[in-house]
């Protein structure tokens, strides 16, 4: 009868049933019609002891191969300082919920305010919300936001150089929400500016989505994009890998209205796809159109500075079907994760890590080309990720990499591989991988 997660003794159960005035636990479900009452046994294993559970997951873990990662495509193997998991595992953060009761949630409210401040700095924008699910859904929500801000315009232009995973999420949301998506052509690994200008001029465009660096790792020249978008009453939405913005020209500097993307690159483990964190920052004038939680400063009854969830009139629990989005809880603990990460790295550390990644990637690209088997796919600037064309069998090469303990890039098409390098990759690792070619 007794079990580690249930404190009730039989005597207590009886006493409690007595106060309620029923004879059995079964009787508590008197309202459930007999025809749908579940009285069988779940077809699940019997309870396991903690040691058995641990053993089972260790066995499962052995079926995963630990690879040295040279792949990116939106998820990067960055370094996580030891402090970060130490802080986020503190149960006062971990086991709390949305800070509805500000008086006993200032820990959460402070870090969200710090997170918003840091993300606004990183993206060069005015404001940030408290987080989104991931980079793909944040971008899709930005499209909805653009259409909601754009009065009658119902179309969003999306560059072909945006990550295909992001594009398919945008298309999914748009299909159901009733937004027309039109793709902007790519030429030689970059957005076709002439095609963009032509499509923007057609009218009815509420937003334009570009990615920087783009899916292929190219750092594009988006000069003039914001002006063209604004001249056509459209918002410029720029998707970026958060960590890259420590050194690259920011969405704010490019003139973007909404900056979105994934924050995984700020030290979050890859964890087979999640949890990560989507970020969304924008110009101040758009703040009331933003989805998600926002924390603001205020005062308490004793005159102290305090923080609180604010501008809630945008949200589903107040506005129901008229809300800016249905999003409520999403990735708060991951906001703490990246906030602690950025606090430790600071302005210099974030820059230094980005410069190391840049140097490693450029070293690797040079060495790959030097083997004579690879050529750069695009003659364009890149950051820490790049595409190369291989003159042999890509599948066989990638298998060889795996057999030797490397996740050797993402195959983009027939003979193109995309490699990513972070500050975690050593010269020795790069040289060992290249020696396999």
């Amino acid at each position, binding site marked *: 009868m007794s079990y580690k997660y*249930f*404190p*009730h003794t039989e005597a207590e159960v009886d006493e409690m049933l007595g106060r*309620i005035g029923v004879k059995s636990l079964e009787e*508590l*479900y008197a*309202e459930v019609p007999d025809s*749908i009452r*579940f009285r069988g046994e*779940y077809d*699940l*294993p019997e*309870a396991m002891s903690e040691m058995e559970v*641990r053993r089972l997951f260790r066995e499962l873990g052995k079926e*995963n191969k*630990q*690879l040295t*990662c040279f792949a990116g*495509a939106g*998820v990067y193997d960055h370094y996580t*300082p030891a402090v970060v998991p130490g802080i986020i595992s503190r149960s006062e*953060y971990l*086991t709390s919920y949305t800070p*509805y009761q*500000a*008086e006993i*949630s200032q*820990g959460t409210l402070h870090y969200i305010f710090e997170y918003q*401040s*840091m993300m*606004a*700095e990183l993206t060069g924008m*005015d404001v940030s919300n408290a987080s989104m699910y991931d980079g*793909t859904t944040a971008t899709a929500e930005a499209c909805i936001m653009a259409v909601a801000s754009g009065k009658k315009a119902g179309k969003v232009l999306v560059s072909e150089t945006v990550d295909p995973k992001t594009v398919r*999420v945008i298309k999914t949301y748009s299909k*159901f929400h*009733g937004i027309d998506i039109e793709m902007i052509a790519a030429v030689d690994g970059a957005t076709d500016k002439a095609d963009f200008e032509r499509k923007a001029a057609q009218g009815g465009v509420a937003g334009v989505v570009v990615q920087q660096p783009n899916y292929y790792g190219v*750092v594009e020249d988006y000069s003039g994009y914001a002006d063209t978008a604004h001249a056509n009453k459209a918002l410029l939405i720029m998707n970026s890998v958060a960590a890259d913005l420590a*050194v690259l020209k*920011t969405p704010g500097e490019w003139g973007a209205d909404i900056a979105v993307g994934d924050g995984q690159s700020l030290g979050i483990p*890859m964890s087979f796809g*999640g*949890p990560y964190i989507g970020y969304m920052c924008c110009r101040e004038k758009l703040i009331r159109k933003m989805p998600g939680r926002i924390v*603001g400063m205020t*005062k*308490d009854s004793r005159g*102290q500075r305090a923080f609180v969830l*604010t501008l809630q009139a945008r949200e589903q629990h107040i506005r129901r*079907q008229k809300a800016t989005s249905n999003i409520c*809880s999403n990735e*708060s603990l*991951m906001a703490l994760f990246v906030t602690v990460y950025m606090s430790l*790295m600071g302005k210099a550390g974030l820059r230094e890590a980005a410069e190391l990644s840049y*140097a490693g990637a450029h*070293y690797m690209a040079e060495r790959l080309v030097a083997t004579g088997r690879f050529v750069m796919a695009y003659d364009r*600037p890149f950051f820490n990720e790049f595409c190369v064309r291989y003159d042999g069998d890509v599948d066989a090469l990638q298998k060889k990499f795996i057999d030797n303990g490397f*996740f050797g890039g993402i195959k983009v098409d027939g003979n193109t591989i995309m490699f990513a390098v972070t*500050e975690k990759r*050593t*010269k020795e690792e790069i040289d060992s991988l290249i020696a396999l070619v």
Partner: protein
Amino acid sequence: MNSKLYGNLIFELSHEGRRGYSLPKNEFGRYDIPDELRRREDAALPECDEMTVVRHYTNHSGNNFGVNNGFYPLGSCTMKYNPLINEEIAAMPEFACLHPLQPASTCRGAIKAYDGLQKALSEISGLERFTLNPFAGAHGELTGLMIIRSYHISRGDTKRTKVIVPDSAHGTNPASAAVCGLDVVEVKSTADGIVDVEDLKGLLDDTVAAMMMTNPNTLGLFEQNIPEIAGMVHECGALMYYDGANLNPMLGACRPGDMGFDVMHINLHKTFSTPHGGGGPGDGPVGVRKGLEQFLPSDNFVCDATSSDKHTVDSDIFVGAYHGNFAVILRAYAYILTLGRENIKRVGPLAVLNANYIKESLKDVYELPIDAPCMHEFVFDGLRDKSTGVTTMDVAKRLLDYGYHAPTIYFPLLFHESLMIEPAENESKETIDGFIAVMRKIAEESVACPEEVKSAPHGTPIGRVDDVLAAKHPVVTYKVLKSEKA
């Protein structure tokens, strides 16, 4: 609560030139980033040494309250215990270091865990198959509605654009319908707090895509007419959507599939004990009845007896980059395996026992608008004695002084002074008795010294906050905060 150390922002502890990190030396030689690609100046992030950062976030955690601190009866949120073994498993490098695009042959263990949870949820829900990809409950609702629309469209039934939602529903239900491009129609509740079947009859026609419900509903009442409702909805060609927010009391008692639901989501962070994390990450798996599998979003894993890694691409619905919040999926799977079939079925009855015990112990002093047996939660409409002027807000704030998290307040919207109480199955009788005693004490204080209650909390690091000021003049970044100070 650590009121002495209340206050600073990390930016205010920053000193130029300090650092809290160490990185390896550049061994690649000089590869300089061209100026034209660079931002004009560094992001103004804090500069702190490592211990300053650790102390800052450690001290701030003392200004927070979690399930591990004490009783957290937040209605509709199922604040249950978050076992630590699940944290250990989620952090195992064998899972944490996997890139989501690794070939299936190099991540079989992860795929098996995904599939294992998917199958366990199907069994517990009485549905055919689950995707674990949606990131949260609201995201699951949106995904589920996309599935329902896709089903209708596939049959050429394109005029079904309405979703029926009870007036007691959580705000996410209508909001998810709107994001999905559907119109919301509200069905009334009866005086007994359940769906008014007569009202529903008048709303059903061939423009209805789905009926969204929780069962038990947000008042904690079991919708007894569910077989009849499901029959009527199916009769008119629409589908039944189950919002899994209130699934906990149904463990061991009733399965949504058996109630007649076709599509549902589960909040892993509620029913399956993954930590709420201050508002995520959770995960919102979506399950469907047999015959609807082809409409599930793409990018799922299903293992069968012969191959352990079928990567399924069923539809053109994509709701995220990869496979959901995988580390959350691991925690929930570990929780289910730990409980096992014999304990999972005890979760519901014990949660329901706790809720009814509190309700019966307090209904003489708090207004119980619908005096009926409840499931895992119930709603008071404030204090019975309204003459003192003490509101639900005041009661909630006074509870903080006594070391309890407040219940959910002012929801559902059916009552003016809603106070929604949900004790999870993990709470002991003495914890609950302590809560009951304090709730009674607050009722007494409301008569004896109402000002003490109206001005609560007194023992927390801060007093009541000015919500109006925050919204009227939004200061949402340190940059603005600093400029205003100057």
